[in-house]
C-alpha cells in the first residue's frame, strides 16, 4: 500500500474518531437548549454508545453495499436507496411487523429475515427488468429502481393504513430512519460481525471488481467469471443494505455518497476503495448524527434519516448533473 493511500486512510480514520468523540460528548441542555461537551452520567452513556456503534455498522455497510452495486451495475448512480432496495427491505420489515402484530405469531429471525428477503426480491426485480440485449441499461435501471421504490412505498402505506392506530406511530417513526438508542448487544454483535465479513469479502474480491469495471467482453477476456462475481456481489450488497434497514430503517443516500466520497481520495484498486468507503460511510452517518444533535426544530431531535436525506439529496443532484453526459 502506498504511503499516500495509507495517509488518507489514517486521516479518514482520525476524522471518524473525532466525529465519534463529538457524538459521545455533545450534550444539549433540556431546559435552555444550550450545547456543551461533556460525558453523560454512566447510566446514560449507553444511550450514546449504542447509536454510535449502530452508525458504524449501518454507515460502513450501506457505503460498501452502494459501491458493490455501482460495480455490479456499472452505474455511478446505483445505490441501495436509488434501486429501491431500502424500500424493498422496508416493505419486508413492515410485512413482518404487520403479520406478527395482526396474527400474533413470531418467526425465526422476524423483521431481520423480512428485511433480507425484501432486499433480495427488490434487487432481483430491478436487475431482471433492467436487462436489455443481454446487458444492463443504466438509465432503465435507475428508472425501474425508482418505480419499484414507489411501489414498495405504496405497499408500506397500505400496511400502515391496515394496522391498528397504536402501531401506526411505530411505523411512521421507523420510516423516517433512526439510529437505535436501545438494542440487544447480541443483535449488534451479530449484525456487526456479518457487516465486517461482508466488507472484508468485497475487499477480498477487490482485484476482480477492478476488472469487472471493464466492459463485459474485456472483463471476460482478462479472465473474470462475470456471472459468478455478479452473483456474489448481488447477494453480499443486498445483505449489507438489509442490515442497515434492520438497525436504522431506511437511511437515504449514504450508499450513494460514500463510494463517491472515497473515490475523491482513492483511484483504482477496489480493495483499498472498499475499506475507504466503509470508513467514509461510517463517518457520514456519525457526522449526520452529530448534526442532528445540534438542530432543534422545537419538537425534539430530528430523525437521522431526515438529515441524510437533506444533505444527501443536494449531493445527489450535483452528482446527477455532473454525470448527465455519461448515463
Amino acid at each position, binding site marked *: 500500500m502506498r504511503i499516500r493511500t495509507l495517509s488518507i486512510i489514517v486521516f479518514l480514520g482520525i476524522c471518524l474518531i473525532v466525529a465519534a468523540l463529538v457524538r459521545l460528548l455533545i450534550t444539549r441542555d433540556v431546559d435552555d437548549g444550550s450545547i456543551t461537551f461533556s460525558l453523560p452520567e454512566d447510566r446514560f452513556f449507553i444511550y450514546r454508545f449504542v447509536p454510535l456503534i449502530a452508525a458504524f455498522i449501518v454507515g460502513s455497510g450501506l457505503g460498501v453495499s452502494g459501491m458493490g452495486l455501482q*460495480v455490479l451495475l*456499472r*452505474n*455511478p448512480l446505483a445505490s441501495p436507496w436509488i434501486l429501491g432496495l431500502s424500500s424493498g427491505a422496508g416493505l419486508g420489515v413492515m410485512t413482518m411487523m404487520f403479520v406478527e402484530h395482526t396474527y400474533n405469531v413470531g418467526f425465526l429471525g422476524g423483521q431481520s429475515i423480512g428485511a433480507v428477503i425484501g432486499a433480495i426480491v427488490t434487487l432481483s426485480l430491478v436487475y431482471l427488468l433492467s436487462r436489455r440485449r443481454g446487458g444492463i441499461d443504466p438509465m432503465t435501471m435507475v428508472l425501474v429502481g425508482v418505480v419499484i421504490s414507489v411501489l414498495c412505498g405504496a405497499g408500506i402505506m397500505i400496511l400502515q393504513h391496515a394496522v391498528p392506530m397504536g402501531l401506526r406511530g411505530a411505523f411512521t417513526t421507523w420510516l423516517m430512519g433512526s439510529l437505535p438508542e436501545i438494542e440487544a448487544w447480541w443483535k449488534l454483535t451479530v449484525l456487526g460481525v456479518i457487516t465486517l465479513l461482508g466488507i472484508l469479502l468485497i475487499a477480498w474480491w477487490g*482485484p*476482480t471488481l*477492478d*476488472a469487472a*469495471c*471493464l*466492459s463485459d*467482453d*474485456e472483463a*471476460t*477476456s*482478462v*479472465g*473474470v*467469471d*462475470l456471472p459468478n462475481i455478479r452473483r456474489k456481489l448481488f447477494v453480499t450488497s443486498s445483505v449489507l443494505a438489509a442490515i442497515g434497514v434492520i438497525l436504522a430503517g431506511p437511511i437515504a443516500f449514504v450508499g450513494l455518497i460514500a463510494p463517491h466520497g472515497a*473515490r475523491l481520495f482513492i*483511484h*483504482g*484498486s477496489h480493495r483499498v476503495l472498499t475499506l475507504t468507503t466503509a470508513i467514509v460511510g461510517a463517518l457520514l452517518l456519525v457526522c449526520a448524527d452529530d448534526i442532528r444533535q445540534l438542530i432543534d426544530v422545537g419538537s425534539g431531535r430530528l430523525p437521522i434519516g431526515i438529515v441524510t436525506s437533506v444533505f444527501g439529496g443536494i449531493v445527489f443532484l450535483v452528482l446527477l448533473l455532473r454525470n448527465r453526459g455519461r448515463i
Partner: protein
Amino acid sequence: MRLHISDVGVRFNKITALRGVHASADGGKIIAVLGPNASGKTTLLRLIAGLLSPTYGKIELDGIRVDRMKPYDRASKVSWVPRVAEVAGAFTIRRVVELGRYALGPSTVRVDEALARVDLLDRSESLWHEASAGMRQRAAFARALAQRTPGGLIVLDEPSSALDLQHLQSLGDLLRRCASEGDIVIAALHDISFAMEIADEAVVLKEGQVVLAGQTRAVLTPSSLGGVFGVDLAWAVDDAGKRHLVMP
C-alpha cells in the same frame, strides 16, 4: 497453436449475423478481417475470442472449444482488443493495463514493457476518463500485450480507428513482432492499405458470409473489393513503386 473454425453460424433472435463460416489458421500469421458495416466482423471476432457462443458449429484452439474454456484458462491463450475500450471508474491508464495480468499474476516488468511499446509509459498515471480516444486505444492494446503469452491468439476489433500515422505504423510493427513470436493475430480493419501492409491473409465478409478468403494480395483487388463494398476502386502506385487501392 492452431485455430479451427468449422461451419459456424450465429443468430440473434431472428436475425442471422453469421452463417457457414469455415476457416483455419496457424501461429505466425496475421489475418485481416474486412467487410462493410454490419457484415459480421465483430461477431466473428467475438466468437474466435470465446466471448460469444455460436448458434451452431464450433471454434477450436488446439482441439479445445474456445467458448467452453473457463475465462481464467482462456485468458492465458487469448487476448482481446475491443474497438472502444470501456472503463467504469476512476482508474489510471497503468491500472487498466495491469488488469491484463488479472488471471496470470501481476508483473510490473510486463506492464512497463507493454506501456513503453505503445508510447504510454510517461502518461501511465493519467486518469482513464481524461485520456484521448487514441491513448485509450493504445492502452487497450498495451493490456493485450501485457496479457499475451507468445504463441497464443490476439484478436483485435478495429484497433487502428483512433490512431495517428506514427502510432498506426507502430501498431503494425508490434503485430508483426507478435506474429514472429508465434501468435495468431486476427484483426478487423477498415483501413485497406494498412491491411495490405501487415496481413498475410485476408477474410472478407458480406451480410454474414465469407465472400473472399486467401492471401492478402490475391484477395484485396479493385474488382473483388469494389463488388463487396459497392464502390469503384483502382490501383495507384506511389513513388516507391508500392501499389495502393484508391477510390478514383
